[in-house]
């Protein structure tokens, strides 16, 4: 069995439920919030980028238009259209002074021959060039305007060429073409200022063929053959919209947000592109996720002990019920009640109440059972005692019966034997008498002695027969009520005590009344006194006293003889047992029989070398009061043996 204070599986289960219920919603909500945050951040980034891209596309268009307009206005001035070289030189110088972006300015004749050339980095007296076959020249001459022809000045710096026709109002067609090579470094500077390299975003301006016109990082823009990757160029140039953007997954594994906007100029296929690695948003999401995870962890740490406490609280009454059930199983009903959670005001409390009712009923039944068992045991004991007592009575009755039958059989046999022996004894006695008579008075002393021996032996044989007959006969007891002392005094006064015996007599002053058959009781006492005298042949003291011991009057006869060993003591009251050379072995058997007939008892106590004490117990006769119930049956006399 589990120790009583241990929490069960129910507590663990409840704990798990609490954890699930508290952490699952938290985790789900956090997950959705992170998703939403990620998406809105992405959208925010994208829309910002798109706005920026559109703005820059506008700026770039205006920037380029400025230079176009300068050239168009200059070509439209009359003085300039007059093709006066001096005047034209002045205008060109002026433009170069005001607009630092112009690197070269040329005036070309309608035939394509360069008439005038101004440049910031030109050697003195430069060679005039022929542009007759050039696309930009022909376009400007025939259609009015050209913008394009992207090149890298000195192999590094991006430039574009603008060509406008010089139209003289007086003439029918153009009188020449004004050419300008414009540096586009200003765009890179603008992007660099707006998107510094320390920021997350990069911005670039590209031509439709991938030519990198400008970049927020000057190192990217100002290098030979600077181009944008063909993959991105393809993505951008295949867009149908003027502007747009979205997340991009490149083949090299880079993920980024990209936004584009076409520069609003029909002649240019330029695109402003702003890009930002996607990992910023992802990092943000990851950080949120991390924070959420730590919150979940903290919540879990807080919930576990709390839930453990609550689970313990919820399951405590159930455990109490379990412990109470254990107590009931052990039969400890009152202790079980102390454990019951009766003060709980829910279903468990109701269960405890029912449980208590059940416990009460069980206790009652158990008590009844125990009571019944005790009664049964008591009754069983009573029956056993009754059976024992009855058995003892039966046994005693049986023994008495056997004894009686034995005595009767012995009496019958003794009578026969006595008759048969007595006849020869009588004949011998007659014969002896006859011989003695015939011999007369004068007789040989030896014959006289032997005749005496014969007569004496006949007498002894006759006495033995008398004794046996006396013992075996069943005569009715003739009790006489008399004071015990009177009986003893009368007996002692006629008893022939030999001289060597000193008699010590001590009689009970109260002298209780006893009911005795005087003949038999006299015989019994005489037998004992006779034995005592016999064991003290030379000298000795004979103590005779009477006293009362409870319901019993006691006659005590003590001698100072040699005493008897225990094995002899055990047999002395048996009939025909004797230690004498001659004797029937009936003397003490007669005593025992007489005492039994008087509903008394005889006990003996002997110590070797010190002597023997016989005690005869007789029931004390109390004066019967009129109407009094007969005395209860006698118990066994107490006394040492």
């Amino acid at each position: 069995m589990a120790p009583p204070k241990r929490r069960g599986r129910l507590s663990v289960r409840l704990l798990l439920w609490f954890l699930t219920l508290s952490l699952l919603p938290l985790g789900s909500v956090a997950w959705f919030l992170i998703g939403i945050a990620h998406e809105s951040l992405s959208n925010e980034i994208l829309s910002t980028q798109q706005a920026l891209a559109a703005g820059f596309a506008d700026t770039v268009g205006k920037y380029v238009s400025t230079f176009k307009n300068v050239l168009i206005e200059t070509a439209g001035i009359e003085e300039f259209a007059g093709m006066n070289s001096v005047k034209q030189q002045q205008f060109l110088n002026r433009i170069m002074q005001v607009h630092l972006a112009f690197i070269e300015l040329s005036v070309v004749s309608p035939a394509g021959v360069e008439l005038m050339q101004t440049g910031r980095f030109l050697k003195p007296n430069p060679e005039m060039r022929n542009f007759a076959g050039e696309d930009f020249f022909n376009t400007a001459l025939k259609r009015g305007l050209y913008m394009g022809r992207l090149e890298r000045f000195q192999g590094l710096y991006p430039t574009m060429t603008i060509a406008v026709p010089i139209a003289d109002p007086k003439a029918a067609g153009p009188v020449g073409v004004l050419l300008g090579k414009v540096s586009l470094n200003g765009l890179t500077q603008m992007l660099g200022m707006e998107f510094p390299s320390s920021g997350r975003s990069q911005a670039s301006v590209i031509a439709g063929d991938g030519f990198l016109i400008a970049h927020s990082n000057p190192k990217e823009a100002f290098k030979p053959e600077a181009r944008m990757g063909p993959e991105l160029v393809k993505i951008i140039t295949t867009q149908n919209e003027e502007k747009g953007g979205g997340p991009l997954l490149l083949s090299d594994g880079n993920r980024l947000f990209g936004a584009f906007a076409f520069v609003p100029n029909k002649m240019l296929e330029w695109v402003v592109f702003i890009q930002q690695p996607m990992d910023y948003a992802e990092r943000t999401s990851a950080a949120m996720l991390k924070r959420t995870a730590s919150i979940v962890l903290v919540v879990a740490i807080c919930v576990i002990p709390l839930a453990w406490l609550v689970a313990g609280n919820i399951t405590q009454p159930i455990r109490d019920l379990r412990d109470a059930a254990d107590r009931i199983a052990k039969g400890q009903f009152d202790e079980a009640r102390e454990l019951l959670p009766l003060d709980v005001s829910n279903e468990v409390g109701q269960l405890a109440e029912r449980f208590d009712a059940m416990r009460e009923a069980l206790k009652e039944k158990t008590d009844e059972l125990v009571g019944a068992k005790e009664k049964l045991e008591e009754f069983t004991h009573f029956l056993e005692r009754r059976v024992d007592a009855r058995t003892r009575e039966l046994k005693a009755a049986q023994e008495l019966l056997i004894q009686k039958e034995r005595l009767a059989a012995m009496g019958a046999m003794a009578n026969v034997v006595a008759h048969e022996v007595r006849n020869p004894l009588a004949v011998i006695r007659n014969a002896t008498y006859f011989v003695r008579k015939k011999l007369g008075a004068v007789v040989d002393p030896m014959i006289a002695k032997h005749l005496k021996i014969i007569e004496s032996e006949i007498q002894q044989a006759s006495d033995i027969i008398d004794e046996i007959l006396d013992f075996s006969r069943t005569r009715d007891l003739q009790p006489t009520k008399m004071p015990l002392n009177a009986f003893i005094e009368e007996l002692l006064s006629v008893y022939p005590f030999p001289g060597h015996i000193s008699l010590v007599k001590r009689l009970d002053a109260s002298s209780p009344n006893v009911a005795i058959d005087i003949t038999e009781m006299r015989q019994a006492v005489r037998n004992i006194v006779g034995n005592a005298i016999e064991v003290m042949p030379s000298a000795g003291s004979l103590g005779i006293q009477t006293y009362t011991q409870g319901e019993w009057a006691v006659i005590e006869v003590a001698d100072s003889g040699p005493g008897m060993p225990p094995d002899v003591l055990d047999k002395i009251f048996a009939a025909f047992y004797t230690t004498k050379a001659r004797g029937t072995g009936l003397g003490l058997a007669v005593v025992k029989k007489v005492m039994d007939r008087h509903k008394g008892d005889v006990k003996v106590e002997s110590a070797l070398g010190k002597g023997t004490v016989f005690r005869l117990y007789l029931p004390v006769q109390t004066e019967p009061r009129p109407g009094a119930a007969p005395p209860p049956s006698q118990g066994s006399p107490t006394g040492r043996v």
Partner: protein
Amino acid sequence: MADPNKLLIIDDDAHLRESLAEVLELEGFECHQAGTAQSGIDAAIKLNPDAVIMDIQLPDSSGFQICSTLRKRSKSTILIMMTGRFLSSEEKKQGFELGADEYITKPFDLTELTARLRQLLSRPRPGA
């Protein structure tokens, strides 16, 4: 000297009967014997003895029976019952009622018996 007193001894034990008869003859009695109750009664009728000494236990009858029969015939005859076994008071009482004068128990003291016989015989008896 007067005629000796006639005694009849009835006992089935011949030795006892004879020894008792011889002793009593030695004492001066005239003794007759019988071994059975019937022969004893016949002898008593024929001899008319002064005293009859009879055993109680006889093969054909009991001494009480003889006693009863003889007492009916003669008031003066002295009837002495002789026994070898123990007699209860009831039995003795019955014997006396039937007319017995004395009981003696074997083995009896002959000195006492002769003295008792003489005393009984010397008493005045009806019809003697």
